[in-house]
């Protein structure tokens, strides 16, 4: 059988699990971002993402990228891992999208070979796009890497997100891992029982059936969870523990984050 698509799917599953585990590991380290209250981290990094999208100058977005690298170093995030898993992937994806803009954007020609020409505006828009995406994704990744997911959820509650939405996000996150594991095992067992080469339609049928079994299992699981919640007295009212305490250090951190974001927006306007 053609094992390519089964292997690609199981590798994708394994990668998602590894990424989540790596995030938990980095979140336990002692670093700058980890030392701040989780609400400060969330508001601060999101305000920097907003500043990145609001800034209209390459120099300002470049300066924000430098801030992101500094934050990564001070938070003991592995820069090599960041380069390999974030910067290179973003460069590959957004770079490919941005390259044609060098030639298609009308404006002042800076390089030309007679048939095609690179314009100043094209160069600026392509650079701005790539740098903007790199910087915003780095800030988001820092938030994910330096904060356990349970804390992100609690911080979202502090930002007045409805309790029902937080509960669903939390439950989904838990069941993603269970279903990824189940789907991985199903594909592995199917593969181990298959001899010979499957045709295209057979491969599609196998994938659809795996997804179908997973769907039936998911609905059965949700019934079990519902009954378990009911039996524990759940009546639709969600309670979330929120025991965060802001210190002077957190207030200082929040002030610095907001000042940096405001300065970037003002200078990059």
């Amino acid at each position, binding site marked *: 059988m053609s094992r390519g698509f089964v292997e690609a799917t199981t590798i994708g599953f394994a990668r*998602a699990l590894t990424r989540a585990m790596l995030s938990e590991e980095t979140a336990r380290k002692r670093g700058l971002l980890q030392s701040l209250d989780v609400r400060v981290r969330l508001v601060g990094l999101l305000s920097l993402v907003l500043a990145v999208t609001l800034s209209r100058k390459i120099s300002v977005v470049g300066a924000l990228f430098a801030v992101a690298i500094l934050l990564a170093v001070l938070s003991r995030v592995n820069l090599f891992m960041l380069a390999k898993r974030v910067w290179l992937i973003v460069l590959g994806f957004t770079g490919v999208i941005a390259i044609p803009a060098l030639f298609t954007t009308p404006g002042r020609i800076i390089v030309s070979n007679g048939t095609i020409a690179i314009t100043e505006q094209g160069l600026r828009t392509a650079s701005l796009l790539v740098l903007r995406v790199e910087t915003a994704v780095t800030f988001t990744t820092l938030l994910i890497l330096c904060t356990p997911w349970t804390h992100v959820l609690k911080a979202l509650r502090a930002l007045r997100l409805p309790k029902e*939405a937080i509960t669903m996000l939390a439950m989904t996150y838990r069941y993603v891992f269970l279903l990824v594991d189940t789907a991985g095992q199903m594909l592995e067992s199917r593969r181990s029982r298959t001899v010979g080469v499957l045709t295209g339609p057979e491969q*599609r049928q196998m*994938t659809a*059936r795996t997804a179908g079994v*997973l769907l039936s299992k998911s609905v059965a699981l949700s019934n079990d969870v519902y009954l378990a919640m009911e039996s524990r007295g759940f009546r639709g009212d969600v309670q979330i523990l929120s025991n965060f305490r802001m210190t002077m250090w957190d207030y200082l951190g929040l002030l610095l984050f907001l000042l940096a974001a405001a300065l970037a927006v003002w200078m990059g306007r």
Partner: protein
Amino acid sequence: MHIPDGYLSPSTCATLYVGAAAGWYSALRRLKRALFTRVIPLISVFAAFSFVVMMFNLPLPGGTTGHALGVTIAAIVLGPSGAILALSIAIAIQALFFGDGGISTLGANCFNMAIVGALVAYGSYRLIAARATLTSKRRVVAAVVAGYLAVNASALLASIEFGIQPMLFRDAAGTPLYAPYPLSIAIPAMMIGHLTFAGMAEAVISAGLVAYLQVADPGLLRGTSGLQGDATGVTLRPASASLQRLWVAIAVLMLLTPLGILAAGTAWGEWSPAELASAAHAVRTSDASSVVPAGLEKLSNLWTAPFPAYAPSFVRSRGFGYLLSAMFGVGLLLIISLLARLVLERRRHTEGMS
């Protein structure tokens, strides 16, 4: 199709967050009228299922592979409100915990894929499947069409969002500040991949799942089948089809229309012949395009809009003119849709009589 941070301007992101919030609010309100304690675990587990389905590497005809979105099967099993919330949560988990898709663009991604995707999938599935039996082949065909249309509608919306960026957001030198390609490039570039591989992936997985459920668990298809009885109690049908929230959302969007005045200059590519010939425009674009094409000069007077530049001539205030134009436009669309409904109802009535 997950738009990362940086591709869309903050105002586009904010507008789409408002649109997505209206969809989330409406879906949540409708589901709260159903058995809400049942909703939370069901939506959560289904969101996790959609997340996993998006990771499946699906073999496609032609030897390539693709990823499905999972919105169609969610709409078929849960109905539109459940699908909107389940997909939105899956997309939010991807952005918040796995870094896939932006945070500033989360509203846009949810609007495109979860809200529009779910509504298109549900609408087309119901239209084609009609009242066919649960095991009918027509349901499989309906799932194919629904999956294909849902993914392509979402992709088309995303490409329009990309394409309007260089029209609206440029610096003084004409440099596009966000996604750099106009609609003429963004739409074909985005749609080619979706009309072929991505649309096909969603169609294949949706059809495969419906065919599987017809054999293994047909009860899951009953909720949105339009047939009597609900074998599973899974589908989260709204208690009433109140359109109140939609009206509020439309009213808010109409009130926001004067925001267009804040944009400097004319929308890119929508210049009048006079603006096209102006010296300022010649600086912004290449010199070759500063000459007004003869065809444009000739055709520019062919049609005069009733509300030129979104403000009728008798209105002094530009903001009020925008608002009036929005009311006129929405009113016109409502009249057309009411007329269409009247014609369709009359035809159905005549068919029923015969």
